């Protein structure tokens, strides 16, 4: 018994893996006191409950069995976003805190070296920097060490940890060294500056990382909220989640189609670009299928709901984009790879140093061996290490922006150079994306301007999708519309009109011309045939008793497309074209731009499958698209590029957006990626080189000749030189041309 006083709410449920689980959830809930009805939507992973008890009761009941209910009603994406934000703020705090405490330590270390109390002050100030603000390095290093691995955190933890402990020891008990003839140096500033710089590098990296996805929110906003339900008692406006399969729905001009279904009455043109990517509106009549999220143009019709809620094509696209985005793994940091080898090597060198000095023996052999082996570890970590990657990437992103290439995901700069396959969407990417008049052929005896103004007047009243293309053409030519005395729309055939002086005109298909018995000059007929062979649409214009002109309308290929594609192919990348449009047009276009591999007639999910198929073959796939129908494929591709004029969603999902939608930016983006990665390698070189020189010195190589061992000045020198070199190198990148 359903009562409107009962609470009714839908909750996300986790732990259901099959239909039996779904009915088990319903059954468990209904057994719970206070629950009247429970209905699971398996595809949505949710349950709609009619109940009188608390949310927590529902949750405990399910948890007892092994499921879980999300009662906060929190959007999982919001939660993720919040967590990321919190992590960023924490990092910011740490960096700032470390920097503030490091400053005095640095000053003392540089200018007040011999001032003994200075050491104690440094000790006290450095401890929080290394062990509190820098604790993540030690935690991560420990995790890595447990698995027998090492990464950048290990290097930082090792070096700064040893530096601090060594310095602390030397501050508390310097006699240990002085009594044996050695200088008890302290390296507090080395430890703290390294921590601060590495944290700063992390902060920069986080800033450069991609924004959280608002693409999904936008996709979801394509779903209508309410719709007009046709019932026995008239039209009712109902919320979309109350629609059921079999309901009859009315759609008015300009409305969004709410659910998938079959047209039962009326007809109209519908903009299906979200599915097919094709800008030309599709005619829908009785028996045709319509899809949720598409937009009705000027007609009005009724349809029967076939797929609702999460079964609609739109919902499935949303789901797939969601899972595609979740499946991409981040690129392993180059720095970590280097560190994983460097750390064991450095430890090895340290041990060897100890062994060598100890076996050489002599006075204070143990202390010497100890000091040198420790010094090796102290000087091992380059302070510019954390800056190497982020500075190069920041410059890369800035450079991209200067060239109208918006880089949303910094990782893409590193991935781009590994690409061997590029998938291009046809409509809107290779072509302009909207029908335009490409050619007009006139019969001999024509006053073109006057006729064009008649055409313009007629098309202004036409509902046909191609009318816009013709209107634009006339406007561009500066034509003004003529005055018509009558106008008629012959659905499916064309339009006809008359002017005040009794002249008759028709615009439409060839069939219309034949019907009205208009003479079609041979040359025009030939032209029409050749255009059709090129997969263009031909529109006929009749005047009194003959066809005066034929117009070819097509989605024009962008000027630079062919050139850009050739450039990309030269780099050894295979270019493939995928489109939802028909075979004939696809073939014509690919021939013109020099693409040999293409597939036509694809649904949005087919594009995604192509991406996966190629990836499984081991290819690194880049995808270029502009529409919602491309978003799943974009999310799956190794590198995704969106066109600036395209849908917001494609731009949000993509790693890179080409603001000008000009394909020639693609080879530029690829070059940018090459330069950036090279820059990272160079930066790493500069970061390490000074420390690498420092290691043998710390190990005591110069000792037999000069008695020279590692001292804080040397360590500081290495730090300064490496940082400056890295920054200078990154700035140098700015000035390299992308062409």
């Amino acid at each position, binding site marked *: 018994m359903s009562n409107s006083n009962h609470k009714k709410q839908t909750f996300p449920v986790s732990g259901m*893996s*099959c*239909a*039996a689980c779904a009915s*088990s959830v*319903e*059954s468990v809930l209904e057994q719970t006191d206070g629950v009247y009805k429970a209905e699971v939507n398996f595809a949505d992973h949710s349950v709609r409950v009619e109940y009188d008890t608390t949310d927590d009761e529902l949750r405990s009941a399910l948890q007892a*069995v092994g499921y879980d209910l999300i009662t906060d009603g929190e959007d999982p994406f919001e939660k993720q976003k919040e967590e990321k934000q919190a992590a960023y703020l924490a990092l910011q705090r740490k960096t700032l805190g470390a920097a503030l405490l490091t400053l005095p330590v640095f000053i003392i270390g540089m200018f007040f070296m011999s001032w003994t109390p200075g050491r104690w002050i440094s000790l006290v100030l450095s401890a929080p920097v290394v062990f509190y603000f820098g604790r993540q390095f030690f935690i991560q290093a420990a995790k890595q060490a447990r698995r027998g691995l090492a990464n950048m955190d290990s290097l930082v933890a090792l070096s700064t940890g040893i530096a601090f402990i060594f310095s602390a020891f030397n501050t508390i008990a310097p006699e240990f060294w002085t009594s044996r003839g050695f200088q008890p140096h302290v390296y507090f500033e080395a430890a703290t500056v390294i921590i601060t710089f590495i944290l700063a590098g992390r902060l920069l990296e986080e800033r450069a990382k991609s924004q959280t996805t608002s693409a999904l929110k936008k996709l979801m906003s394509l779903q209508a909220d309410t719709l007009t339900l046709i019932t026995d008692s008239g039209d009712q406006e109902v919320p979309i989640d109350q629609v059921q399969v079999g309901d009859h729905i009315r759609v008015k001009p300009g409305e969004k189609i709410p659910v998938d279904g079959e047209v039962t009455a009326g007809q109209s043109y519908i903009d299906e670009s979200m599915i097919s990517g094709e800008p030309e509106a599709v005619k829908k009549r009785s028996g045709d299928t319509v899809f949720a999220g598409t937009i009705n143009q000027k007609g009005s019709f009724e349809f029967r709901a076939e797929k609702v809620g999460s079964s609609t094509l739109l919902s499935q696209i949303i789901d797939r984009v969601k899972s595609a985005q979740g499946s991409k793994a981040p690129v392993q940091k180059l720095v970590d790879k280097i560190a994983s080898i460097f750390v064991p090597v450095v430890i090895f060198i340290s041990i060897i140093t100890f062994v060598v000095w100890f076996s050489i023996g002599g006075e204070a052999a143990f202390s010497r061996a100890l000091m040198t082996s420790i010094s090796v570890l102290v000087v091992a970590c380059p302070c510019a290490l954390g800056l190497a990657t982020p500075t190069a990437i920041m410059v890369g992103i800035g450079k991209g922006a200067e060239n109208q290439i918006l880089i949303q995901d910094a990782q893409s700069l590193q991935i781009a150079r590994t690409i061997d396959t590029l998938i291009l969407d046809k409509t809107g990417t290779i072509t302009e994306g909207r029908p335009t008049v490409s050619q007009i052929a006139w019969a001999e005896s024509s006053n073109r301007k006057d006729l064009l103004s008649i055409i313009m007047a007629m098309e202004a009243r036409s509902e046909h999708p191609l009318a816009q293309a013709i209107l634009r053409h006339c406007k561009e030519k500066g034509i003004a519309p003529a005055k018509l005395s009558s106008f008629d729309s012959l659905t499916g055939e064309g339009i006809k009109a008359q002017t005040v002086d009794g002249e008759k005109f028709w615009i439409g298909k060839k069939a219309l011309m034949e019907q009205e018995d208009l003479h079609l000059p041979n040359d025009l007929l030939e032209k029409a045939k050749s255009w059709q062979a090129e997969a263009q649409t031909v529109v006929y214009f009749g005047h009194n008793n003959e066809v005066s002109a034929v117009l070819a309308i097509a989605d024009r290929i962008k000027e630079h497309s062919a050139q850009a594609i050739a450039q990309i192919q030269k780099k050894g990348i295979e270019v493939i074209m995928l489109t939802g449009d028909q075979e004939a047009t696809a073939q014509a276009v690919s021939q013109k731009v020099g693409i040999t591999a293409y597939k036509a007639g694809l649904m949005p999910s087919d594009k995604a499958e192509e991406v996966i198929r190629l990836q499984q073959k081991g290819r690194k796939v880049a995808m270029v698209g502009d529409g919602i129908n491309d978003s799943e494929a974009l999310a799956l591709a190794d590198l995704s590029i969106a066109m600036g004029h395209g849908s917001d969603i494609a731009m949000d999902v993509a790693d890179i957006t080409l603001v000008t939608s000009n394909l020639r930016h693609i080879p530029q983006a690829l070059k940018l990626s090459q330069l950036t990665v090279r820059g990272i390698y160079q930066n790493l070189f500069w970061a390490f080189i000074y420390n690498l020189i420092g290691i043998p010195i710390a190990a005591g190589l110069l000792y037999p000749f000069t008695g020279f061992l590692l001292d804080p000045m040397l360590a500081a020198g290495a730090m300064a030189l490496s940082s400056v070199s890295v920054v200078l190198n990154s700035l140098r990148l700015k000035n390299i041309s992308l062409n």
Partner: protein
Amino acid sequence: MNTYIFKTNLQCANCRAKVQPLLDKSDEVLDWQLNLEHPERLLTVKSPSPNPEDISKLVARAGFQAQLQEQAQ
């Protein structure tokens, strides 16, 4: 000791994971086996209890259905 064989509606390993803790902990169940390969998804239970309903109720607590098919001594 009774051996009961039930027809169930458990379909997958995940479902099994839901009933497992209940069956393992129960005093009424000495030993149990679930055959998911069998079209009837048979659950075989060795129980000291003379009442097969005790077992069905247990399975129902996890939200699944168990219908007695066979009983052996």
